[in-house]
């Protein structure tokens, strides 16, 4: 189990700082790769930080600890925002991130469970994540373990049919230990989600599939903490989905809400502006 850094008294402040760390490192790493997913990593920054610095039980010294909570990204393209957090909590030395996207590096745009400690399952094929979570949650139940499995999905991912196969099966198998999180940042590669392929009404869709639905501001750390602290028991019968209202590119004014920044590469001046805004951000 990880110890939260006690030097910082206020957990919210800590999570805020770690979300900044995730964003700043995302900018540094993408600059190295010369292409990457800014917008959809920034929309998840507070969610990542809240999970790893407040919610989840894990052990960086024993990364395959059987009873750990699991975290899987259906939207694996946000991995660049998670790697810095995994390094920060101690799964591997921060210097290893300097190999990001180099030939043979463990770190690519999408995460690999066999190459990176702290990655519970690889991803990249959007729509797989929730199904993986169904399997992990069934495994937990068979082993009488009370860990939870958190699956982060994108709003574009809601367009994948397999998500709804998984949603149906999770309710059918009564997997109260499975928690879906939708990073509802409202953009996909080609444009704004509702203009590309409408996914609404999202809340009603999940409810009709038999899920417990919670809506929350995905950048409000107090609200995120409150939401995660009040999840139903892991041994309950109904899976929960948290629909997080988020902003693509959050934290960098010229990126916010823009689908153009889903995959991009910042020039030198823009990097400077973006870093200043993130560092100065509240």
């Amino acid at each position, binding site marked *: 189990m990880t110890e939260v850094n006690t030097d910082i008294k206020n957990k919210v402040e800590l999570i805020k700082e770690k979300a900044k760390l995730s964003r700043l490192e995302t900018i540094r790493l993408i600059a190295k790769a010369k292409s990457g997913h800014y917008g959809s990593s920034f929309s998840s920054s507070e969610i990542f930080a809240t999970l790893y610095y407040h919610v989840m039980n894990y052990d960086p010294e024993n990364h395959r600890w*059987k009873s750990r909570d699991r975290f899987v990204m259906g939207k694996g393209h946000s991995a660049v925002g998670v790697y810095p957090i995994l390094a920060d909590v101690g799964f591997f030395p921060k210097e290893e991130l300097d190999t990001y996207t180099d030939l043979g590096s463990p770190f690519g745009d999408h995460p*690999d*469970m*066999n190459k990176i400690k702290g990655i*519970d*399952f*690889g991803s*990249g*094929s959007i729509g*797989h994540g929730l*199904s*993986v*979570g*169904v*399997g*992990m*949650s*069934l*495994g*937990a139940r*068979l*082993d009488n373990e009370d860990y939870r499995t958190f699956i982060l999905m994108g709003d574009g991912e809601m367009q994948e*049919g*397999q998500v709804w*196969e*998984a949603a*149906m*099966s999770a309710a*059918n*198998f009564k997997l109260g230990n499975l928690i879906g999180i939708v990073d509802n940042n409202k953009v996909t590669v080609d444009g704004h989600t509702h203009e590309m392929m409408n996914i609404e009404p999202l809340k009603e869709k999940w409810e009709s599939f038999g899920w417990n639905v919670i809506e929350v501001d995905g950048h409000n750390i107090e609200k995120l903490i409150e939401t995660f602290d009040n999840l139903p028991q892991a041994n309950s019968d109904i899976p929960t989905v948290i629909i997080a209202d988020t902003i693509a590119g959050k934290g960098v004014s010229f990126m916010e809400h823009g689908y153009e920044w889903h995959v991009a590469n910042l020039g030198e001046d823009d990097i400077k502006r973006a870093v200043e805004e993130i560092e100065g951000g509240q």
Partner: protein
Amino acid sequence: MTTQNTFHKDTWELYKGLEMSKQLTSGKTLAALADEYPEVVAMSADLSKPTGLWPFAKEYPERFFNFGLAEKNMVTAAAGLASTGKIPFVSTYASFLGVLAAENIRTAVAYPNLNVRLIGTHTGIAMGFYGTSHHATEDISITRAMANMTVISPADGVALAEMIEESVRTYDGPIYFRVSRGREEPVYTESKEVQNKIGKANILRDGSDLTIIACGIEVLQALRAADQLSEAGIETRVIDMHTIKPMDVEAVLNAAEETGAVLTVEEHNIQGGLGSAVAEVLMESNVSCKFKRHGFYDENSLIGKPYHLYKHYKLDAEGIASVAKEFLNK
């Protein structure tokens, strides 16, 4: 009408008596291993009975999951279960497993090298007049192109049971088993001695004029064809190449050197299947021999009852013997 207790072995007329699928031994085998191996779990997509998983499902309901008609979810969930230390056996028709769920198998099972065992049943044209949607003549090709994947096409229920047991006890990594409808006659007789080991071909008959390398239900037909060829003065070696990947290279090269002619027989497209795999071995060796692939010649099957189809496509004993004679110009 729901029952027809007579089974016409020649025409394979459809009827409801699943007990005739005696070669679908996965459920029985897993039930026998279940107490010793609590990590064994199984799942199907609304086909637990036709695939033969039912004996396990019935005896261990808490370890069996019916995913309904959702194969992609099932395969990916199996991968999630395997990541928690389970050994999931996933079984449905091959057309919906090795073909429909191919991307999920590639990305979620093969790439992370997880201990998921996939059992595609009713392969080839076993579904007869159900048509191309229910046929699987591409699944060997698809699964053997996936790194980390072992591909096995057992000749019968004994072979399937033996290699399932090996896969639970000692084998690591993902496996795609390819089995037919289960109503075929067996090749092997149940015995205390293990007769089928993953990766080791079985030479079931020796001969000096020709080798037939077959897999799955074509092994029995190849043996019968060899009898007919013997009457015509052609002595045929028959190899059961149940493991297509990794292939028993030594068995292939010995056959080429010692008999000088190799004919592959499979209920699969010759492009990418057993024949292609054998050809790859031969072309990269220093051995030269006559060589022919027999199976489906990059075509989809006609509609028809299985018996008529196997005859039409020369995948029965007579057909294989005629192809062999033509191949040898005899």
